Each structure stands twice: as C-alpha cells, then as structure tokens.
C-alpha cells in the first residue's frame, strides 16, 4: 500500500470518529527473509500486512484500538471501540492535546525500489555466494538475507499529517570451522549495495583466524570492540536518554543535564537522517523528529521527549514518541556515536596486550542505575600481543558498567551500521581499558 492509499484510508477512519480528538496511524509492511544453516536454506519466509490504529480522546480519557481488517464496517467498529474504551478510562489530568505536527522531509536514500522489489531468487543468489565461500573453506555457515519495505502514515484531528516510506536489507553470517566461528554483517536501505560474498568472506576469515582458541584468565583486560560488539553493548544505554527514565530517577543522567558523565571524547547524537541509516523523520504522533546531540564531550546535553513528556516536564517536544499512550516513554532509536581519529588497525597496533572482540551475546542489565551489564563474547575473540593479533581465545563472560567503560575509551575513525532485533545503531570500533571479565568457557 503506498502513501496516498494509506492517507486515504487514514482520513476515512478519522471521519468515522466523533471523539473530541482522534489520531489515526496506518502501517504497511512487506518483508522477506531467507535463512540458512549448514550451507542450505532451511527457512524462507515473506509476509505482508496493513494495520490501522485509532487513538480516541474524550475529555482527558484515552482509548486505543487496532485492526488489520480494512472494510468499512470493521473500520467503523474500530473507531467505536476506541471511543468506548476512552469513555470507560479514568482521566489523565496531564494529558496534552494532540499535536498539530509539522513539516518533516524523508532523508535521501530511505526508500530504494530495488530493495522493495527484491525477489526470492535474488536473496537465494546472495545466500549461494555465501555457501560457496563456506564450501571453499570446508566450513558451514548460518545466517540470513532479508529485504523489506514499510510505510507509516499518521493523521490527527489537530491537523497533523505525516507519511514515510522506507526500505531495509541485511546480511548476517556466522561461519563455523572445526573449533572456531566467525561473524560478519551488513545492512543498507539499498540491497544492491550489500556485497554478500564479501560479508561471507569476512566471516570465514574470522573463523580461520580464531582457530585452535586458547584460554586466557578472566579479569580486567584492554579490549577493542568491533562495531557489532560495541553496538550490542551500547544499545543498553539507549533507554537512559528517555525523558521518562530521566525524570523517574532510573537514568544515569537523572542527576541533571550539563554535567560530565562520560569521557571528554564521547559525543552521542540521535540522527534519523544519517546516511548510513536514513529513517522516519517524524515520530509515531506525527511530530517532526529533531536531530539531537545527547552527549557532547562527555557532558549530557539533552534527553528525548514526546508530546506527553515534553508537556509534563515543560521541555521541547523532540519528536521521539512511540505510539501513544504507552508505558515506555520516548525513545532514542537512531543513536550515533561520533568517531575518533585513528584507524582500527592503529588501535590494535598500539595495544601491548588485549582482546579484539567481534561480537557479544545475551547482554542483560545487572544494575540499572550504574548501567552494569553482563554478557558473553562469541564468534571471533582474539588475543592481541605487542600490537598484533596472535590467535583466537575461548569465549568469556563480562560484568561491566557501560558508563565506566565510556570514561576510558578511544574510538576508531570509521562509522559502521550495526543491528540486532531490537536496535539499529551507527558506531565506530572502540578501545576500552579495564573491561571486567568474570569467567570463561571451553569453546
């Protein structure tokens, strides 16, 4: 469904509502993923859907109803259900009026037709290139190739009108050798810019270089985290930039803005328009998203808000709202960590003894306020001795405060997009001193 069709649908539903205020959100999505293991496809899927969400406000009461049944009877019932729920809901005295939105232009490169139109044969050929690399090394590979398109349209009774279409694609490969593994990934709105063969080859190089891993003692190490590892770690800091967590005391920034919390070389922004990850220029309330500096030179400068939290805290609405109302608060979902000045190779060369880490796994918070997290290394962990990579090491568990790590870090000079199922970030590789490992494994 294109943006014009979504807007027609949204306006029809808006007309069905006689609530005091109404917001209609229409999502469309068409995604496909070819997943493989042991050099063959074992899961090959696609799905398409369009959903409509109505937020009805009666006085200071709110109700929300969602459906993907799009005939007029179902849509009239949808509006009625939302209003009925609003009438039964208790009042929220702090509920602001719906915002009138504003102009928000999609960043260049957010939608690429070749990605939206990618056929299963194209994904299969990308997989096949990876399989051939695995077979050439006598390894086996597991991973996926995915392509998707998605659209969002929002209209409300205050006059907000916003629409966005985007695409995305990704390649994710874990290569398995006799006693070692390697990982590589790539993501782009334009699938034609993804080189599946090169990504497969990189994962194979990692597996080869980490063969015959040795054990090293846990304890404090100098580590160099490649972007996939740093991204997985840094994603656990994202919630701290929410105005909700800031106000409620669970953010590391809750002692106030304009204070030094991190190293003076740390600058963090939220930028939906970054060319490595161009995204939606407005939030799920139809309000234009600000490109925002959150931390500059280690000093906290901003938190992200939505309509509710901007009103509650008397701050500017930065346009970072999820579908409202919600229990999660506004979210910084396009985080960018500014790069340093040295190439990754130089960071390695300047390390007398340390660990180069490709990827982390199963990171979970241990202490919310101090941002202590635990997790494991996986798929390519290497010993650095006298500035050179000297071989693979067995995986280890860490317990580390992200805040403390970002007080003693040095960033590489290149930015990469990295992602997981719940985040997409732009980060450099980073060198961190005194990274705390607590135990090891036999693999």
């Amino acid at each position: 469904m294109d943006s014009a069709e979504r807007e027609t649908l949204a306006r029809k539903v808006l007309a069905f509502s006689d609530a005091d205020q109404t917001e209609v959100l229409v999502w469309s999505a068409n995604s496909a993923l070819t997943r493989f293991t042991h050099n063959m496809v074992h899961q090959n899927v696609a799905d398409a859907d369009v959903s409509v969400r109505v937020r009805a406000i009666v006085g200071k009461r709110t109700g929300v109803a969602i459906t993907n049944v799009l005939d007029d009877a179902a849509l009239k019932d949808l509006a009625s259900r939302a209003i009925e729920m609003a009438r039964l809901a208790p009042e929220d005295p702090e509920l602001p009026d719906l915002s009138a939105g504003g102009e928000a232009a999609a960043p260049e490169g957010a939608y690429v037709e070749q990605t939206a139109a990618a056929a299963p044969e194209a994904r299969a050929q990308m997989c096949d290139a990876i399989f051939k690399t695995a077979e050439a090394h006598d390894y086996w590979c597991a991973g996926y190739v995915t392509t998707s398109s998605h659209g969002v349209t929002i209209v409300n009774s205050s006059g907000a009108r916003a629409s966005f279409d985007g695409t995305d694609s990704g390649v994710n490969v874990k290569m398995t050798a006799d006693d070692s593994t390697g990982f590589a990934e790539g993501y782009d709105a334009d699938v034609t810019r993804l080189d599946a063969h090169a990504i497969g080859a990189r994962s194979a190089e990692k597996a080869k270089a980490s063969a015959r891993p040795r054990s090293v003692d846990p304890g404090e190490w100098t580590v160099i985290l490649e972007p996939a590892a740093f991204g997985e770690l840094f994603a656990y800091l994202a919630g701290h930039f929410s105005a909700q967590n800031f106000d409620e005391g669970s953010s590391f920034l809750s002692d106030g803005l304009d204070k030094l919390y991190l190293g003076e070389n740390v600058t963090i922004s939220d930028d939906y328009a970054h060319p490595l990850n161009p995204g939606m220029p407005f939030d799920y309330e139809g309000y234009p998203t600000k490109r925002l500096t959150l931390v500059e030179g280690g000093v906290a400068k901003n938190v992200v808000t939505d309509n509710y939290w901007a009103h509650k805290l008397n701050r500017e609405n930065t346009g970072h709202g999820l579908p409202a109302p919600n229990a999660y608060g506004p979210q910084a979902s396009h985080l960018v960590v500014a790069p340093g000045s040295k190439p990754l190779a130089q960071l390695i060369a300047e390390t007398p003894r340390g660990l180069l880490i490709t990827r982390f796994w199963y990171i979970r918070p241990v202490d919310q306020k101090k941002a202590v997290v635990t997790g494991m290394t996986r798929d390519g962990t290497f010993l650095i001795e006298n500035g050179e990579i000297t071989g693979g090491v067995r995986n280890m568990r860490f317990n580390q405060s992200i805040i403390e790590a970002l007080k003693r870090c040095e960033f590489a000079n290149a930015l990469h997009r990295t992602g997981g199922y719940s985040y997409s970030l732009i980060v450099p590789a980073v060198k961190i001193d005194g990274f705390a490992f607590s135990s090891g494994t036999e693999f």
Partner: protein
Amino acid sequence: MSFEGPAARALDTAVSRGADYADIRFENVRSERIEARNGVVATLSDTSSRGYGVRALVDGAWGFAASSDLSDAGIDRAASRAVAIARAGAAIARNRMGHAPAKTYTDRFATPVKRDPHDVPLGERVRLLLDAEKALHVSPKVSVGRAWMDLWTTDKYFYSTIGSKIEQRLSQTGSGIEAMAVGEGDVQTRTFPGDIGLYKAGGWEIIEQAQLAANAQRIGEEAVALLSAPQCPSGTFDIILGGSQVSLQIHESCGHPAELDRVMGWEANFSGVSFLEIEQLGRLKYGSDIVTIVIDNTLPEGLATVGYDDEGTKSTVSDIIRNGMLVGYEMSNDTARAIGRESNACVRAQSWEFVPMIRMCNLNLLPGDVPFENLFDDVKDGIYMESNRSWSIDDHRLNFQFGCEMAWEIKNGKRGRMLKNPTYSGMTPQFWNSCDAIADQDSWVAWGTPNCGKGEPIQTGRTAQCASPARFRNVLVGAGYRG
C-alpha cells in the same frame, strides 16, 4: 467462522504451482492490554488481527508466505508466493531436509475457561489495576508503580493437503504488579507474581489467582527496603531459588538447549547452538537423580497448552530429562525425522504472519517431596533468592549468570536478613547435578513466560516452565557485583 473455502483455494493453488505438500493456518487474534502506571492508565488497547500463513514444500525445500488479504486474488498471491519462495530455496539446496507430515487429524480444541474475561466490565478491570497500582506507593521513594493485564484470544484454523482440518480456540491471560524505588543513590525493583506476572491458559480465574491487590503493599515495601539492604555477599554458597527463578533456570538452561533445531544448527547465527548434542542422547547426566523435566502440552492452565501444534501434530507428554539423564528433545516433524523419532508437537508460530518453528512449550520440572519450608533445614550458610532481575547464558547454553530482585541470608536453617543485588552463576550440567532437593506439589506453579524470543524474524513465544522452589549446593554467588 469457517475458512474451508479460502483454504481449499490456497491449497489447490499451491499444488497447481508445484507444491508437493502445503498447509494453511488462518488466525483471528484479539489482544487486550491494560497498564496502570503512576496513577493513570498508560495503556488501554484492544487489538484484533486476522490473516493466514501458507507453507509450501517443493523438492524438499520449504517456502512460507503470509498475508492479511482474504480476497481470492490475495489467497492466490500468497499461495503462489509460498511456492515461488520454496522453489528459490530448492534451486540452491545441497540436500533435501523438508518432508510432509505423516498423520492427518480432524478435530477441535478449546482452552478450558471458567469465566470469559470479556464478561468482566472494562471499568472493573481498570479499577482492579488502579487499586493495586496505588497500593504499591507506600513511600515517596516508590518512583514508579505499574499494574498490568493481558487478555489474549486466538482462533486458529489449520488445513493441509493431506486432509487435516483442525479448529482451536486458545485463551491466555496474565497480570502483574511492579514497584521501582529510587533513593540512596540506588534503584531497586520488585515484581509480583514472579518476575513478569502470572500468565496461564484460561480466563478471568487466572487474573483472580494472581491476588495483585492483596500483595501490592508488601511489594512496595520490599522495593523500598531493598534500597538500604546490605549487598548480597560473594563466594560459594548453598542456594535456594524461588519457584519462578527455578522456572527461568529451566527455560534458559534446559528449554532452549533441548530445542532440536538449535541442536542441529538452525539457530546458530542468532540464538546459538546447544551443548545437548545428539550423541549425548541417553548418555549425558544432565542433572542429579531427582531432576526430571517433561514436556506436557496437555497441562491444564499451562500457557503453551494447545490441542495441536502449528504443523498439525497432536499434543503429547514426553520426557526431556528423566532422573537426571538426557532422553529427549523438543521436536518438529523434520527434526524428529532426522533422528529417527516422531514430533512431540513443539512447533508454534507467534501469529499468522510467522513461520512455525520449534518452541519449548510447557516444560516442567516435576515436583519433589520436600515441603518448601524444609528446604532450609540442612543449610548452614546459604542464600535464598527470589524473582529474576537479570538473565544471561552463552550461545551453547552452558555458562550462565542470573540475578534476582531480592534475597535473604540463611544461617543454620533459618531465613535471616534481606539482601540486595543477588547474582549466581555456573555451568549448566554442574549446576543441575548440584540440585539435592525440590519442593513438593504444594508449591508447584505453572509459571508462564509470555515473552520468549527466538528465530529470525524474531518471534515472541508463550511458554511455561512449571516448577517449585529447589536447593542447589556450592554455587558461585556474586560475580555480577564483583566484576
């Protein structure tokens, strides 16, 4: 509602396009969520979703396409897409792993429900949560109070080219409360019941079982008390885990590694592989003799209880761990066939738009014969921990570290002072072999996990791990706070 007409059209289309086998699963899903947060209703939503997923098998390769378009053209498009996707995979296949199911069923199943939650007026549901949430605020230090409720109803209609016709109505509900206290430079959280609420198959009776309002004041008080509680010590201790924490331990260290797709490398790039390799079946001493863990997808109130799984296989009871020995896996048709067994109906999809895959379903640690309070008797110097706060395990499912919301020291068989920030860690087989007592049936609860993530695209599964509290000897405590 019957989908026989659209089903026949989809299956005919798939076969005419070259499918050797096909099935289609229609779903009508209704999800209602209410969440009270700091005195206001932060979420009050009613979501309905209707659609279908077609699986097609072409030359040993599977294709799956899902759509919400129920028009004839939409049905034809989705069925054709599933076949085209399967064919694209078959074209680059090195070997053939897909097979059609062997058994055909025509049947109906419905979750037993004592009271339909939708018969309870919305205003009454909201009031229950607002009252419970309000009672959490025992002190200004309670910065956030939450109370929530989920009601899920799923109507499923499964049809296949070998003649299966299965209709199911699944009803699942859950609710919980949480208090977050802030002060003294610290943040502490308490949740009830368990660490995520009480989630089961059933109706309003499950909400009533949770007893939210009756426990809210205590939970608020415990969150505040934790702010000034002493830090849990580090070292090697005998530990007793509360039932919900044992449930999560089963989930992470038995449920996931016993998924046969993981064992076979199907999740290698994401969720990981498994130390429970096929060569270990019948040989590995996974746990002590008192540890028996079974799959029971027929269990009353089990969150994952269904009549049939999403491949059309009838629910069964089967062993994973029997008296400490590894004897089975959670299986699908294809994976079971690969090791010469039959599926034990462990295949689920999150909803119509997702491909069915192996999920852990109801995986239960059978109760022991020790009353809960007697678990403490033989502990000279130990720690009792409750309600998970942090969970992490490696991608082979061996090296784990869990944290709980609160703990109490145990001295000479008696529960002593409250402790904060408890963590414990270990290696899975050593840990389960150190289990020397499991509490009896009186404290056995069908703990549901409504948010289990697995697969790509990631799917959220609703699983259960029924458990009672248990005791483990010589466990490493405190690594999370020692570095």
